């Protein structure tokens, strides 16, 4: 659990100014949805929180992001440790070309958190937490690609949970999934919020309404509105938000 305090965040990709002066505080122990039309910078905002933007050439970031009071953009941040604390789940399920077990164990081994019996326990706990254990417990050593799309996505969640994160970022985690798999992930997100800070990017307004406690609406790289989900959906302060929620554009 950790609070994420974003101060005057700007991100450029080469000459493209993607995020403009974003300031918001993301609450711990809750699901925060970042919504907005395609290209508004939602994913960039998410990827600023675990500094994944900088794996792309030509990215430049200014401003600060404080996690538990520590600015992750100051010079002495250990970016690998940061990414352990801030887990990420991608739009398209991306299991590694390894067994189900090895996928979950991967991060644990990288960070040398455990081995042997303790590692087995962590894998089991993480898969249970991601509500996948019962479906895979008899086939842990089969390829992760033998799972269905929805199962793969829950495997990716389990993989992120295995390294003891405090924050879970989900980048449109359901956009490649069918409605039943989507529902399972949404239920899971609600459960995860009891223990973690959950931040989800979605372009699906209904999904934001269903799963989130807080919602941020981004448009053309600017934060238009941010507040408790109920309040934003029932009485949006900004006209753009209202038009987006009612499906006038998107």
């Amino acid at each position, binding site marked *: 659990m950790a609070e994420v305090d974003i101060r005057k965040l700007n991100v450029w990709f080469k000459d493209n100014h993607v995020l403009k002066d974003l300031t918001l505080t993301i609450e711990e122990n809750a699901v925060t949805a970042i919504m907005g039309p395609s290209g508004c910078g939602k994913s960039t905002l998410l990827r600023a929180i675990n500094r994944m933007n900088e*794996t792309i050439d030509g990215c430049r970031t200014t401003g600060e992001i404080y996690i538990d009071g520590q600015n992750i953009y100051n010079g002495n941040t250990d970016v690998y440790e940061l*990414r352990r604390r801030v*887990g990420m789940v*991608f739009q398209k399920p991306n*299991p590694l070309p390894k067994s189900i077990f090895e996928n979950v164990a991967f*991060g644990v081994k990288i960070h040398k958190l455990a081995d042997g019996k303790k590692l087995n326990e962590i894998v089991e706990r993480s898969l249970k937490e991601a509500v996948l254990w019962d479906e895979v417990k008899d086939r842990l050593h089969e390829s992760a*690609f033998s799972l269905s799309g929805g199962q793969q996505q829950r495997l990716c969640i389990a*993989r992120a949970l295995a*390294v003891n994160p405090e924050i879970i970022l989900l980048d449109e985690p359901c956009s490649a999934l069918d409605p039943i798999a989507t529902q399972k992930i949404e239920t899971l997100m609600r459960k995860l919020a009891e223990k973690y800070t959950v931040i989800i990017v979605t372009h699906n307004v209904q999904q934001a309404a269903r799963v989130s406690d807080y919602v941020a609406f981004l448009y053309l790289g600017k934060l238009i509105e941010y507040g408790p989900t109920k309040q934003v959906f029932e009485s949006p302060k900004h006209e753009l938000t209202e038009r987006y929620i009612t499906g006038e554009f998107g």
Partner: protein
Amino acid sequence: MMRSRSWEKVFFTILGAPAAICLTVFFWITSVLLTGIGTIRLNLLTTSALQGGLFEMIVGTAYLLLGAAGVAGPVGVFAAIHLTEYARHGRLIRVIDQAINNLAGMPSILIGLFGYAFFCRQLGLGISLASGWLTLALMMLPIVIRGTEEAIKMVPYNFKEAALALGASKWETVKSVTVPSAAPGIITSILLGMARVAGETAAILFTSCVLVTRGLPKSPFEPVMALAFNLFVKIVALGESPDKVFGIALILFLLVISFASVGIALRIYYRRKQPWLR
């Protein structure tokens, strides 16, 4: 419409001709060589050259190949990893790229000459197995580097992203995700490199081979016998009639074909096993 369709057919037929020619030539060579089967008896393979057998040539060729792969494999793979994953793209990389292309197209006699001048004379390795390894490795390198680069580029970016997002460093990602995923392609490129130099004559002509040795080389610093070299010398220098050397030619042919086939078979096998490559 009809007209352009029929033209299309004509052009495709013309384009198919080179493929047909390749096939014809290949089967012709095969059939000619297979007529040589009669001249070899199985015990030739295990009989010493001193008694007119091929034993030292076959083992010598294997020594040369394995040693060259032992040098070019690691060097080529690390070079390719550096070029694809670490190097910043700029003028230097373009120059290196072009140098690799030039090395691939370099006539093997020139590589052999360089090997003689540098490895044999300058480094003082003399006419030896070691000089042969290094010279052949020079010829294999462009194939291994290019093949490995291709294999690494085929690894989907989202594998690397997954590892990075879990807090893996770049090297950990390369070591535990990128290279294992590219391994089949890397192994294939090493095998194809070996196939390329298996029949190589010019490069070993004056760097590592002699016509007859007393038994197998006892150290990497002794000269060695090889199939291709013997074939060449027997025909050109000793003027033996071609039917006398059919056996050597056939074994050499089978050796090259089998390296290439194993390489291709592995590639097909792993394509099936690795769904993301499809």
